[in-house]
């Protein structure tokens, strides 16, 4: 069998809601194929659902960035060795036992029960933001007035970050995640957010006893200051960019699928499943995550050697017809969508997923209850897509009611 080798990974989508057709075509030929990385390394591209799950669930693959070959040609040769190293507290890019120790400090704060207890409070934040939207004269940008503020307000309050200080991290987050930023711009942006987080940790240590997650974390006495500040940074970034983009492009998707939106309006109890299906359908990352094998491992008859970097393609895996029967490229709010890998899989699976679910369930439900006649205020092809950002979605969503 000749092996399929890709030199580039496309991010341009033929349809705003679907993964690039070139990638799904690769998946339908070979769920595991070869991919050339920026340094010439011949690694792997994994597009099949069960293969992605197997690799993400395996301890034979590392998430230490020092081990990964880089995909991004722009940064090749530009990244000093010490910058590739995961910083203390950045548990997302660490392996056990560090990852386990740090994540455990936070897991108790994100349990299903704790997140369910926040429902009423999140409902109030959503109501307030919808009332704010109402003050505009029949039209607004849904991203600016609703999709971004809701998760930002929630995560700021949970972490004990002053929402009025969001200018200290929101623009820099965008710079950090922009695929158009140079390496230096991205590094400068992250350094400024780190300064802000260090100040925050110092303030909280000087005024202990606050009713927020960072104060609780510091009260355990477990993390060092540096760890605490990077852990807080991770939560802050993960907490507002991801859910915001799901609310934005999720609303765009529903408006473009009126039959499905009607189901949501007629059967409000479908919302829990609707959120899973929107997550499956949209994935909201272009590709990833990445892992590197720490020992030889055979997956589906392919020998992945120790040191080989593997790029998983979550959007393609979430449309894999072997897992999602019927037509996986069709949005179907009643489809059994559980088992999607939009939150990842394995020990790094999204820590904040139960919070994200509740924000989305309440956010979409109340949006369409309060604005049942919500419609797009531009042509669909005029909606600016985040093809230039690490996390996909829409830059703005002009709506009218």
């Amino acid at each position, binding site marked *: 069998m000749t092996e399929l080798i890709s030199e580039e990974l496309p991010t341009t989508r033929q349809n705003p809601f679907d993964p690039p057709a070139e990638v799904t075509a690769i998946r339908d030929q070979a769920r595991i194929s070869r991919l050339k990385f920026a340094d010439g390394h011949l690694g792997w591209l994994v597009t099949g659902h069960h293969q992605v799950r197997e690799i993400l669930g395996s301890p034979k693959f590392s998430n230490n960035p020092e081990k990964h070959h880089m995909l991004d040609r722009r940064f090749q040769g530009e990244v000093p060795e010490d910058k590739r190293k995961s910083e203390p507290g950045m548990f997302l890019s660490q392996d056990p036992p560090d990852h386990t120790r740090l994540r*455990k400090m936070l897991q*108790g704060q994100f349990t299903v029960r704790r997140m369910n207890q926040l429902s009423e409070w999140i409902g109030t934040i959503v109501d307030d933001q919808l009332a704010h939207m109402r003050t505009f004269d029949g039209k607004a940008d849904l991203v600016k007035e609703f999709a971004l503020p809701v998760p930002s307000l929630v995560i700021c309050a949970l972490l004990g970050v002053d929402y009025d200080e969001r200018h200290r991290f929101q623009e820099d987050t965008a710079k950090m995640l922009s695929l158009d930023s140079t390496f230096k711009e991205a590094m400068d942006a992250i350094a400024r957010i780190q300064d802000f987080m260090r100040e925050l940790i110092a303030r909280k240590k000087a005024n202990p006893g606050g009713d927020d997650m960072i104060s609780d974390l510091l009260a355990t006495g477990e993390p060092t200051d540096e760890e605490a500040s990077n852990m807080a940074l991770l939560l802050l970034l993960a907490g507002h960019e991801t859910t915001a983009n799901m609310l934005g492009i999720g609303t765009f998707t529903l408006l473009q699928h009126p039959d499905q939106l009607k189901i949501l309006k007629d059967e409000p109890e479908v919302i829990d499943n609707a959120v899973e299906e929107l997550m499956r359908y949209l994935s909201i990352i272009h590709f990833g995550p990445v892992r590197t094998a720490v020992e030889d491992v055979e997956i589906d008859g392919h020998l992945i050697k120790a040191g080989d970097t593997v790029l998983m393609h979550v959007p393609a895996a979430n449309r894999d017809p072997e897992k999602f029967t019927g037509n996986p490229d069709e949005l179907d709010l009643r489809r059994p969508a559980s088992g999607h890998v939009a939150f990842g899989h394995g*020990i790094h699976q999204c820590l904040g997923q*139960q919070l994200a679910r509740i924000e989305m369930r309440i956010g979409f439900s109340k949006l369409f209850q309060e604005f049942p006649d919500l419609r797009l205020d531009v042509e669909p092809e005029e909606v600016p897509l985040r093809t230039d950002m690490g996390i996909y979605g829409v830059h703005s969503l002009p709506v009218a009611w």
Partner: protein
Amino acid sequence: MKISVDQSKCCGSGMCVLTDPDLFDQNEEDGTVVLLQEHPDAEHEATAKEAASLCPAGAITVS
């Protein structure tokens, strides 16, 4: 049917509680799995199996 859980593998994702809160809970301290019923009724068989398959850390087995 017998459910077993391995707290040392658990990463506190909460997928089991989301799937069947009658069978699973999470420790308040570190979010790890707490098994509520080791031998549940047959009516919980499907959700027990689903929880095992959804667990991102492979911490649940149903036999």
